[in-house]
């Protein structure tokens, strides 16, 4: 269980996150939605250690993890993806995945000289695993491609793929869906559910595609102006007046009448 306690993050006079508190239950797929600039990504950044909060605490399984650095959180099983894809541009797509698992023997300089055989074996296994993930994401043909040269949506897939390389406890997904083809997004949704069911991953998902949120997430937390506006099951949220006004809107006004 992750408890976010009254987190605040101020940029100068601007309060990007302004006292947000909520809980993410273990084993859940929690949705996090809210208008642009609500502070969702900032909150992610605070929880995942990329930003130090101005105040507040983050507690994971009873342990205070506020202010730990991202790599420490990674080792505690907390992973995240980025809204704007952060690929390792000069490396191949497969390498992008293979680098993820931590504690590889070959990451210690000394072992690279002394334990070469073991490393080779490990690498082989890793490569296989990476290929499986790529297969799953439908981009196995890109395995050898330089990561800087793949399309915007493919980069987002790669982001997701990285979290599948290790056994994570909690995964924070920041708009995996933006720019991803809807058919593929459905597949990704299935994958998330599967990972959740079979491997017990806890997910926290930011997404603007309400179909996706509705299909996957329970509960859904709505943020606005740095605070939690509402939370609850997806269908409740979708009917919430305040949420509709701030975030969902009432659909296309002009499309029906004017165009044809």
């Amino acid at each position, binding site marked *: 269980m992750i408890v976010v306690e009254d987190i605040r993050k101020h940029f100068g006079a601007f309060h990007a996150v302004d006292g947000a508190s909520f809980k993410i239950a273990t084993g859940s797929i929690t949705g996090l939605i809210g*208008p642009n600039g609500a502070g969702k990504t900032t909150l992610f950044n605070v929880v995942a250690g990329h930003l130090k909060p101005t105040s507040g605490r983050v507690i994971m399984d009873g342990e205070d993890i506020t202010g730990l650095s991202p790599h420490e959180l990674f080792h505690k099983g907390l992973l995240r993806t980025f809204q704007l894809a952060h690929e390792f541009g000069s490396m191949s797509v497969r390498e992008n995945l293979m680098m993820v698992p931590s504690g590889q023997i070959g990451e210690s300089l000394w072992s690279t000289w002394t334990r070469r055989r073991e490393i080779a074996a490990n690498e082989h296994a890793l490569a296989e695993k990476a290929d499986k993930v790529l297969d799953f994401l439908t981009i196995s043909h890109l395995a050898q491609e330089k990561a800087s040269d793949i399309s915007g949506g493919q980069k987002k897939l790669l982001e997701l793929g990285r979290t599948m390389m290790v056994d994570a406890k909690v995964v924070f997904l920041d708009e995996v869906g933006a720019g991803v083809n809807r058919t593929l997004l459905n597949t990704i949704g299935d994958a998330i559910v599967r990972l959740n069911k079979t491997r017990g991953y806890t997910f926290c998902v930011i997404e603007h595609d309400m179909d996706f949120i509705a299909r996957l997430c329970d509960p859904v937390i709505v943020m606005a102006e740095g605070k939690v506006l509402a939370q609850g099951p997806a269908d409740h949220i979708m009917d919430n007046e305040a949420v509709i006004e701030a975030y969902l809107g009432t659909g296309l006004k002009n499309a029906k009448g004017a165009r044809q």
Partner: protein
Amino acid sequence: MTAPLLVGDQMTGGYGHTTILNGCSIALAQGEIAVIVGPNGAGKSTAMKALFGMLTLRSGSVHFEGEDITSLSPEERVSCGMAFVPQTQNIFTTMSVEENLEMGAYRRREGLGETMSQIFSLFPVLKEKRSQKAGELSGGQRQQVAVGRALMTRPKLLMLDEPTAGVSPIVMDELFDRIIEVARSGISILMVEQNARQALMIADKAYVLVQGANRYTDTGQALLADPEVRKTFLGG
């Protein structure tokens, strides 16, 4: 329907030795909204770049208002009346929101205030943040800045590469509404969209691109109605 405004004919090209576009053709007339959909990596962005001269074609041509512009540079195409919002890196991160918008009018330079207030009424949040650095905005806000900047050019043709990626539903609806309005004023719109259902709803013409070639071409409504297309490309 009037004579086509923009025609990309049998475009073939790619990066380095790889070929991404395989004889892809795109055309739209004045005041039309055309949408390109397709799986990731299909070459949609590449097609847009090709139309805008950011990628040299190996064969095929691009015509704008009947003139061959295949060999013009991007900034010359801007002068012709084309505007483009790329999929990524589409704002000036170190400049203020206001300056970002001003840069859109770099070629035009007059009537700044008027267009700007139009854009502010379209995206109110930008007015609030007008003097903030665009790099400090949230993902969706950036997207709004990017579209705003392109609108500032007052183009004849506005090309948008996934303008709604990452914007909240309410803003997305606003954006589509606005796009319709823009189209009504005579500006043609060509966009790539993954939020395909909304996009196709307002599209006069739609292309489904697969592996750099046209797979389906029809009106938006027609494609929306095609179960095959829905299943394979629109997520059911």
